């Protein structure tokens, strides 16, 4: 069982889907390997009062496995939002995002790309892969919390 109560597995079991619909909790997948950023993302969600069901994946391979599962398992629901780090071990975030956009069931899921890079090329690449937003991870705690606004906008759009 998942030892971390803050992160739950997205499950395809019908009872849980029903359960989720009753509570209407958004599903957010966090793909991030840096523990500091994971902590900050949890801080951000709670500071912005976003009560979400969170699935944490720590590298690109895990993300690709999830995408494959979403494609084959018709009972699995697409997440409402993916928070995607670019600088991931093994498979990088752009590869994950490119694969997502070709997914036959969940290609249109909103994605916020997060990186510590200020490179214009990274931003451009994120936009060309239809990222909902591009968040340059700041050094400052309070600045980081501003990601909450982007998450709320992305969830509302849906």
């Amino acid at each position, binding site marked *: 069982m998942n030892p971390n109560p803050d992160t739950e597995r997205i499950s395809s079991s019908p009872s849980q889907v029903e359960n989720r619909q009753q509570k209407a909790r958004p599903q957010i997948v966090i793909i991030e390997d840096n523990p500091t950023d994971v902590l900050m993302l949890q801080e951000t969600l709670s500071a912005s009062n976003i009560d979400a069901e969170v699935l944490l994946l720590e590298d690109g391979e895990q993300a690709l496995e999830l995408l494959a599962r979403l494609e084959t398992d018709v009972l699995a629901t697409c997440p409402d939002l993916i928070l995607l780090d670019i600088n991931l071990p093994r498979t990088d975030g752009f590869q994950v995002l490119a694969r997502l956009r070709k997914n036959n069931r969940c290609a249109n899921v909103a994605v916020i790309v997060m990186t510590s890079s200020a490179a214009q090329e990274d931003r451009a690449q994120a936009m060309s892969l239809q990222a909902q937003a591009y968040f340059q991870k*700041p*050094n400052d705690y309070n600045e980081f919390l501003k990601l909450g606004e982007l998450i709320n906008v992305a969830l509302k759009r849906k």
Partner: protein
Amino acid sequence: MFRRSALEMRVVILTPVGRDASLLAGTVNALSVETTIASEPEALLENLSEGAGCAILAEEALSPAVIADLQPYLQAQPPWSDIPLIVLTSGGVPTRRSRDNARQLQALGNVSLLERPVRPDTIQSAVRASLRARMRQYEVRSRQEALVRANADLEQFAHSASHDLREPLRSIGVYSGLIEQRYAASLDECGRDFLAQIRANTKRMAELLDDLLSYAQASSIPDEVLEPVHAKKSLEVALDNLAGAIRESSATVTTDSEMPLVRIRESHLSQVFQNLIGNAIKYRNDTTPPVVQLSATRANGDWVFRVADNGIGIPPAYKETIFGLFKRLHTNTKYTGSGMGLAICQRIVERYRGRIWVESEPGYGANFFFTLPG
């Protein structure tokens, strides 16, 4: 390695008549220098492309058609290379025709004409001189290659430094923020002050890393000729990035002439504008709000940009040093900065074969100038 350097120091010989070639080869081999005899002009070009220290060519082998083939090859040599060619001319009394021929041959570039009959030691001294010159060219090549590598290394280093150092730095920033958020109440004033110091220094370190990356990236420009870009657009981007500083200082930024089209990467020009205008605002005097005037004038086929301010100015003694990396004239408490802004400007401008300089008198503002190809 040995094979390659042997090729690079060999002498290629093209003398189509009789036993000339083998006689010449013997003369050159006596210097312990390898030779390759080219049977025809096509083979000559092939041999030269594979590598050669110099070539000995008979005038009669160099018909206008052969010269026309040889010229593009010689012009396409890399900047370090200027292969020495020794041409054996037919002797006798100079005629108009022989003078015309000589002129045509000189068009091949690094050419020495030796009149026949040539004594073997004359050939040998010409070959020795040519190979010495060629050695120098190879040295220039290795220095240039080392420079290119060093630049690439610097960029790679700065790139990973700014990325890999940013991660732990961000952790420091985030965790000090968390401490402040959760435990500020249990700290005394001194503890809270220490935390504020951590956060201020984290911010400063992040700015240093940004500038380090910009500095390294200023060296990477594409090889192809750039399409001209509107300087106005780069300026707008710069002003956009400086909007906060302009507002806070009540600065006025004006353009006194139309901004031209220039051949430079747009982001590089934005960076130059941003650093110069940013400095003009930062180094303002205490009494009047900053006024920054930009203009561009045409001179010798280039554009000369001028960024003039009414700030504190720069003492003449520092006119050169301010463009050095990490050079700062002020303490960090009075004016913050990394000391990289002008070094970045200089690096960018010089990459486009431009120049940057300052004219200033302390107390009367500063005029920064830079040139760019139009």
